[in-house]
């Protein structure tokens, strides 16, 4: 049995908007093991984003327990949560969130700036290595506005890898990309997963979810369905079958 990275039990999250209480999450139990590639799915308002915020240690649950890599996060204060994010988590956002007018390399280095143990030489080496993993070593000195959307998302992926996190959390990481680029990004995610990375991927697109190993579907703050993907898609094969762009004309 592989190691449990994320263990959530009886998790609740309530929001208070005026006098109305919104139950964003009601009694969620969930486990993600090392090496898994999980899609967290659901319609808007299903609670999947709230779940991601809590998994990402950006938000605290109202009740329940969340163990991340053996650490109980509910007892932690803000600064300890920041430390957890810095050393155990990698984030990827829909809109890449790269710093403008900052080279790809410096963007990737960013998380390591907040880790005093990493010296500047080591920081640079790790960032270059992460960019090599996503296939952008030749673009490391480019600014975000000199990169395509797919390349920018690769930089963001490199940034999420640079601190060697126990789990990568992706939030609609392909939401802003066209089909071909989405497949390319999914190919990268599948490659990283094959290398042993644990990935939790929030998406509302069932097509994208089929690239993963397991799907968890949220509805009204509860897990509605949880299943292993039976006919899994492989991005590298799909790309071969895509019509070449010049043929479309």
């Amino acid at each position, binding site marked *: 049995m592989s190691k449990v990275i994320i263990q959530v039990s009886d998790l609740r999250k309530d929001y208070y908007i005026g006098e109305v209480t919104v139950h964003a999450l009601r009694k969620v139990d969930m486990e993600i093991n090392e090496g898994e590639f999980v899609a967290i799915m659901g319609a808007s308002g299903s609670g999947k984003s709230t779940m991601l915020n809590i998994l990402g240690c*950006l938000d605290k649950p109202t009740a329940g327990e969340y163990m991340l890599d053996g650490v109980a996060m509910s007892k932690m204060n803000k600064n300890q949560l*920041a*430390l957890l994010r*810095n*050393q155990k988590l990698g984030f990827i956002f829909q809109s890449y969130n790269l710093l*403008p*007018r*900052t080279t790809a390399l410096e963007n990737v280095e960013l998380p390591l700036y*907040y880790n005093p143990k990493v010296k500047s030489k080591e920081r640079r080496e790790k960032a270059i290595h992460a960019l090599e993993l996503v296939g952008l070593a030749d673009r490391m000195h480019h600014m975000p506005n000199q990169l395509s959307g797919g390349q920018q998302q690769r930089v963001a992926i490199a*940034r999420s890898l640079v601190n060697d996190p126990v789990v990568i959390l992706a939030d609609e990481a392909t939401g802003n990309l066209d089909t071909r680029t989405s497949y390319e990004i999914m190919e990268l995610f599948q490659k990283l997963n094959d290398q042993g990375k644990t990935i939790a991927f929030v998406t509302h697109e069932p097509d994208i979810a089929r690239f993963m190993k397991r799907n968890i579907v949220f509805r009204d703050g509860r897990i509605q369905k949880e299943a292993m993907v039976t006919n899994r898609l492989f991005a590298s094969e799909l790309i071969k079958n895509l019509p070449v762009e010049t043929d479309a004309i």
Partner: protein
Amino acid sequence: MNYTNLTKIAVNALKRNKFRSILTMLGIIIGVGSVIGMLSIGQGSKKSIQNQISEMGSNMVFVMPGSQQRGGVMMGNSNAKTLTLSDVEKLKKEAQYLSAISPQVSTSGQAVNGNKNWPTSCTGVNADYLSIRKYELEDGRIFTEKEIESLAKVCIVGQTVVENLFDKGVDPIGQTVRFSGIPLKIIGVLKEKGESSMGQDQDDLILAPYTSVQRRILAITHIQSISASAVSEDKSDEAITEIETILRREHKLKEGESNDFQVRSQAEMIQTFSSVSDMLTMLLGAIAGISLLVGGIGIMNIMFVSVTERTKEIGLRMSVGGRGIDILMQFLIEAVLLSIIGGIIGILFGLAISYVATSLLSFPMIIMTNAIAISFLVCSAIGIFFGWYPAKKAANLNPIDAIRHE
């Protein structure tokens, strides 16, 4: 916390917005520059006035006749005849704090040489007068004791008189000029001294033995004033007290009676003018200080805008592990860097202002190291003070809201 990293982050953030950083600094640059420039101009003008007053003479002390009472009637100052040659003799003998002393009688009139004439003044003095008033001989000699005793008809002339009474190239020494009908043989010519701080031409004068002016020209027995030099500038006050004691005794003034003479020193004049300049400096400095404050508010303003504009960046930094304190320090360091760099440029700018201004106004340039040090401290304080609030606002952002901010 790792300040090296945070400083790097802050420097990079400022570099990303070079133009805005420079514009933000501009307020501080102008503020510090004007504080230093204004203080320097103020101090320069003070020094310049002090120099001009000291140019008038060396540690001068003047004794002028004062009002006297005759049977309960106050007489005016101008016609008072309370000072006499015996006062001068007594002072010369007894005063410890005076290094030189000269009686002074003066009259204005027309000086004539051949077909040229010039209105000027003839002042009767002794040989000490030149050192008291810092006059120097360009040519010739000063009158001797014998000439003073014998009411000799000799004189020393200033450059303005020479220019107006003699053709170019003519040596005035040995020539005779007539002043109020009395022929005076020129035995010396004074070096040019220029205008005094009150705009008076100090070269427009004729000096003659006081005996000659007193008896031959004015036909009086009293003297109009006494000029003296104190042994040093800081002994001026003692010299004044000493003169007052000696003269009160000589004039047989009873206790409670007011002086029938006045004693003034150059040091007093310097103080009076200096206090005016100091006030001017403070006024200029205060106005410049306000512009520094405005510059500081400019920094706060930009930092606020920057926090709002960079909300997403702040969210991202938080999501990759930046703590509230890290974000706070980043923005604080940015603000402090802006104000310190602005301050350094401002100091250079201020020095440039004072250089240009002092050379235009021909003041001595005074670099006030304490003003520079204070400006620098004020800049850092402004950075911390005005950077704190926006930085705090940034640090208190909720990472979820910040990262999703559009």
